[in-house]
């Protein structure tokens, strides 16, 4: 069957907790050399309620969809609290990769700086309040590219 109160309280907690802010500020020993104005904690972007505002606050412009951004996420999450989402890309000169969940209370989940010479591939687990599009933005050569996939968060049960 489907559900009970425990399940519901978990959902409510998720809704209240918002996204986990995993900030991968690339501590790879190169950080000081790469220090720039936008290395600061992107406070405004983490306040944005939807993905478009968050991307704008983070990058100041909008991305274009690209099949060179390969987003791997489940169709239906096995657990909404830890949804495995990974991305890799064949784009060159990648400088940052950001993850967003459109329907989360705070849309931006994480933004990673990618130091030069690093293979642009990131896997992380994100928290999702409910069924939503998951968007990944790759900054490469000063341009923004994106990919998206809907991930369903269900109360489960009732299998055939």
């Amino acid at each position: 069957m489907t559900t009970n109160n425990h399940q519901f309280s978990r959902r409510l907690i998720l809704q209240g907790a918002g996204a986990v802010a995993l900030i991968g500020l690339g501590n790879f020993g190169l950080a000081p050399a790469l220090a720039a104005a936008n290395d600061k904690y992107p406070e405004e972007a983490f306040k944005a309620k939807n993905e478009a505002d968050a991307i704008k606050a983070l990058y100041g412009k909008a991305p274009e969809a690209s099949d060179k951004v390969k987003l791997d996420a489940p169709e239906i999450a096995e657990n909404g609290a830890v949804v495995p989402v990974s991305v890799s890309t064949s784009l060159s000169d990648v400088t940052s990769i950001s993850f967003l969940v459109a329907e989360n209370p705070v849309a931006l989940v994480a933004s990673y700086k990618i130091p030069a010479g690093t293979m642009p591939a990131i896997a992380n687990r994100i928290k999702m309040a409910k069924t939503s599009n998951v968007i990944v933005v790759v900054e490469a050569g000063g341009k923004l590219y994106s990919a998206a996939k809907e991930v369903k968060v269900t109360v489960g049960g009732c299998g055939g």
Partner: protein
Amino acid sequence: MTIRRRDFLKATGAATLSAGFPRLARGADNASVYDIERFGDARILHITDTHAQLRPVFFREPSVNLGIGAMAGNPPHLVGKAFLDRFGIRPDSADAYAFTCLEFEKAAGRFGKLGGFAHLKTLIDRLRGDVGINRSMLLDGGDLWQGTGLSNEMQGADMVEAANLLGIEAMTGHWEFTYGEKALRDNLARFKGEFLAQNVFLTEEAAFNDAKAFDPASGRVFKPNIIKEIGGYRIAVIGQAFPYVPIAHPKRFTPDWKFGIRDEELQKLVDGLRGKDKVDAVILLSHNGMDVDLKLASRVTGIDVILGGHTHDAVPQPIAVRNAGGVTLVTNAGSNGKFLGVLDLDLSKGKVADVRYRLLPVFSELLKPDAAMAAQIDKTRGAQAMAWSEKIGTADRLLYRRGNFSGTMDLLICDALREELDAEIALSPGFRWGTTALAGQPLTMEDVLAQTAVTYPATYVQRMTGGQIKDILEDVCDNLFNADPYYQQGGDMVRTGGLLYTCAPAESVGHRISDLKLESGHRLEAGKHYKVAGWASVNEQTGAPVWDVVAKHLRSGKPPNRQPSGVTIKGVDDNPGIAGQG
């Protein structure tokens, strides 16, 4: 029950038609139901979703099996007359009885029960014998170990014995996983065939802790495929387990494993089998469900045939799906041992030249039960059969489960939950297994267990708000009717007792369910609390097992609640997936 043999014979041929794929042959009107002309180089036999029904059963196919969006009106979403028309099956024939719900009770009297492992064994041995030694293979698509009190009590061990005797060479799984890793592995140690699953991987934590895996490098828990040589050709069989085990069932049964459809991993596997292993044919033994398989076939290239299950759709002809690499045939072979899929392959180097497919109904009364299997079944049933054979009630009408929204068997279960647990509303899962009882038939504990035997049978009584109840209905409904099959889980709508509602399947999630009312006629209020009873929750519960609750109710002899299902279906007037409401 007397059977008129000519009733069967008149009916053959219809279900053996195949069309839509290059030169798919049309079966001739054979003199005997099970005389099949030899064709090609390899015969693959396929059973699926038998749900541990060792003995012949009645099983009524659905009168509501709606397809939404691109799936509307397409197989498997056809019922009743629309089904007969689409597949060229004559009304009133034995095949019409096996494949549809039309005049079920009348036809049940004429044609009797279907399935049974001793009968299956006879038919399988005959069809394997027809093509000669080393020319055939027997595959099982999963849901073999669950569905009866016996299999639940023995954690599937009874079915492993039956599978070995039947000669199953490879299988995949779904409910098999609900016995947990230890029982699963113990069973597999005794299973003479291979358990295949390309889409089950260790979680990161389990991999880190060196949990057991078939391939530690990839984290793949089970062997993904076998390659069998038949008639000088190499045939690869890949297993695809049910992709949503930890979502549809309690996660505690499979804490170390993650699932999913994983068509990219599948594509890599197929490419490797074609490229490196130079196989001549690739078969996917799938427990995805038919809609998922149809979509998968359009995305993954290099698979010749998908032998499908899970959604219990008995589809007489393969559906041809075009993709970037060519054509993939998709089948689904019904449930409860009612059907045996027969796939004959005409092979040439590196490819399948031609195909014949039949989905044979297993008419128990036309088949002499295999003595060894019958003895094995009697032995295994032993003490339990005695304990569970006492009559505890009578079917007051035709009791069936299968259907998108409701079935009379589930109404009975909901009635029992409400009465015995003193609740206003009852919820019962939309499982697609569970046999059918004819009106007037005595009901035993064994019958009750055939509807309820799961490893998480505990009942619960909870207070839920009207809003929460609506959310549950919406959530389950989206698992059934999401326009994208990859977001469906299979299974039918949760059954409700004491709660009436309107459903518009073609709407989007959150907008399908409306007009919720209690049996009294009062509207369900979003903020108000209601006492709800149910069972088979994915969260751990402590109430009595549902079978005891239902048995108590039957024993009490309370007059049957003849309330209709209370579900009004909207916006599907021209959909051939519905024959009347229910």
